[in-house]
């Protein structure tokens, strides 16, 4: 059967005569950028004009994750004001709806869009607003500036496919190991990570069953930050390791319990109420530490040095609804 091709009408302006960037309209929201900032504007329910401004680099880093992760699980807060909620067949776009003060002041706006429509708009915005030399997935020290007037693009870097193993990295027909020849040199911060492969001694015929790989070497060659891959899969249990440096560009709001296992170095997490942003806790994680993020929280990580984090996800398609219906708890375990 031929794939269904979705034709989505993206509302974009002509390039601005000075900055060179297009503006985009999605429902009642308007997005435009200038040399330094992304501006989001909307009309409140009482008819008042309202706006919000973000640094262009920070906006693009957040937009990159939202696009690449297919709107992820639950809330992708770009900052304390704007973001998206994945409803899995559609996506909410909001401004102020999960900010306690703005919600109370009734100046927030939330609109729901078919996933294809918001995805196409975000993809075009990301491509148009990302200049050559700026990679939104890279650590700040490893990329150029997002600022300035429009100059070229960086389409290859903003259209990377997520690396998702079906069973395990390195198996025949599955996600391949990273290497110099695949364009994945060892990152400067992981030059001391041992690269040797496990010893494998399969009997004839069991070469694809007696299998192990060097996960830390695999991660040492990641070219991106804050972008989990799948490396091993047990039913809907997904090992999603990732390398982290600087700040998680989004504030992730959970619609399920999410677990973090810190494999090296350290990350500091700010945790807050997912509906209001009210601070709840700080979680300091060092090598070997495990912590859960409850389904009622939003969290943002700070990694002083590039580190390896195992994000462990339950990807069950029914889990978010089970939490909403009270059939699955918001906290990881009771004791």
């Amino acid at each position: 059967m031929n794939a269904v091709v979705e034709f989505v009408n993206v509302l974009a302006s002509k390039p601005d005569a000075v900055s060179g960037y297009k503006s985009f309209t999605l429902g009642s929201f308007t997005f435009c950028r200038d040399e330094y900032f992304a501006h989001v504007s909307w009309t409140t329910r009482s008819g008042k004009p309202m706006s919000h401004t973000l640094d262009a680099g920070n906006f693009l880093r957040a937009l990159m994750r939202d696009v690449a992760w297919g709107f992820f699980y639950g809330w992708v807060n770009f900052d304390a004001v704007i973001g998206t909620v994945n409803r899995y067949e559609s996506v909410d776009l909001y401004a102020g709806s999960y900010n306690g003060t703005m919600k109370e002041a009734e100046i927030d706006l939330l609109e729901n869009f078919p996933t294809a429509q918001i995805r196409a708009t975000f993809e075009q915005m990301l491509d148009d607003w990302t200049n050559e030399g700026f990679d939104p997935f890279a650590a700040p020290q490893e990329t150029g500036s997002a600022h300035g007037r429009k100059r070229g693009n960086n389409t290859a870097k903003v259209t990377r496919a997520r690396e998702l193993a079906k069973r395990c990295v390195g198996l025949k027909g599955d996600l391949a190991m990273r290497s110099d020849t695949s364009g994945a040199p060892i990152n400067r911060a992981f030059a001391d990570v041992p690269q040797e492969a496990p010893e494998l001694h399969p009997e004839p015929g069991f070469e694809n069953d007696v299998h192990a790989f060097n996960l830390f070497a695999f991660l040492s060659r990641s070219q991106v930050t804050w972008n989990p891959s799948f490396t091993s899969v047990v039913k809907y249990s997904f090992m999603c390791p990732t390398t982290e440096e600087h700040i998680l560009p989004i504030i992730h709001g959970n619609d399920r319990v999410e677990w973090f296992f810190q494999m090296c170095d350290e990350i500091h997490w700010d945790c807050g109420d997912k509906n209001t942003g009210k601070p709840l806790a700080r979680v300091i994680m060092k090598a070997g530490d495990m912590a859960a993020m409850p389904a009622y929280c939003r969290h943002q990580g700070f990694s002083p040095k590039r580190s390896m984090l195992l994000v462990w996800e339950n990807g069950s398609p029914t889990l978010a609804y089970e939490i909403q219906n009270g059939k699955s708890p918001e906290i990881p375990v009771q004791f």
Partner: protein
Amino acid sequence: MTAPKYHTKFGSLAHFEKGGVQSITDDVKHYAFSNCFDIASRARPFEKIVFGQNQIYVLETIRAEGNSPWYTCAHDEFALCMDGEVEIHLIQLDADQQVRDQTKNGAVLVIGEPRGQPMGWMKIRRGHQAMLPRNSAYQFRAAQPAVLIQQTCKGELSIERWADICQTA
């Protein structure tokens, strides 16, 4: 002047530092904060101690020391070595020793000596992750204490002692 090189900090049984939850208004128990080296340092060999749980799925910390029993499981599992060196020996288990209920979650002990065709073995060290294929029998062998993290489903061998392993205040 050349800048100092980066040093990647790993933990081990011999040396680990724990972070922790700094509560502002929340209950620290809701974060189920623990540390695999801390757990393994206080565990008996091959106890499968759950330190991550999400519905039927778990991550277990295992202190590998000496030879483990032979295990089998109806679904794939994975073992990540966080410290030390562990051999994993595999046998393609005869059908009559496989888990009868193929929907059963978690590892079980093989009853009696495992029978079947040897599949081979592997040796993993820190950072290496091994596949434990469904319906195989597997045994861990560690000459010195080592730490494994097992990705699996909660089963009859899984041990929960959350109050002992997690930060509570």
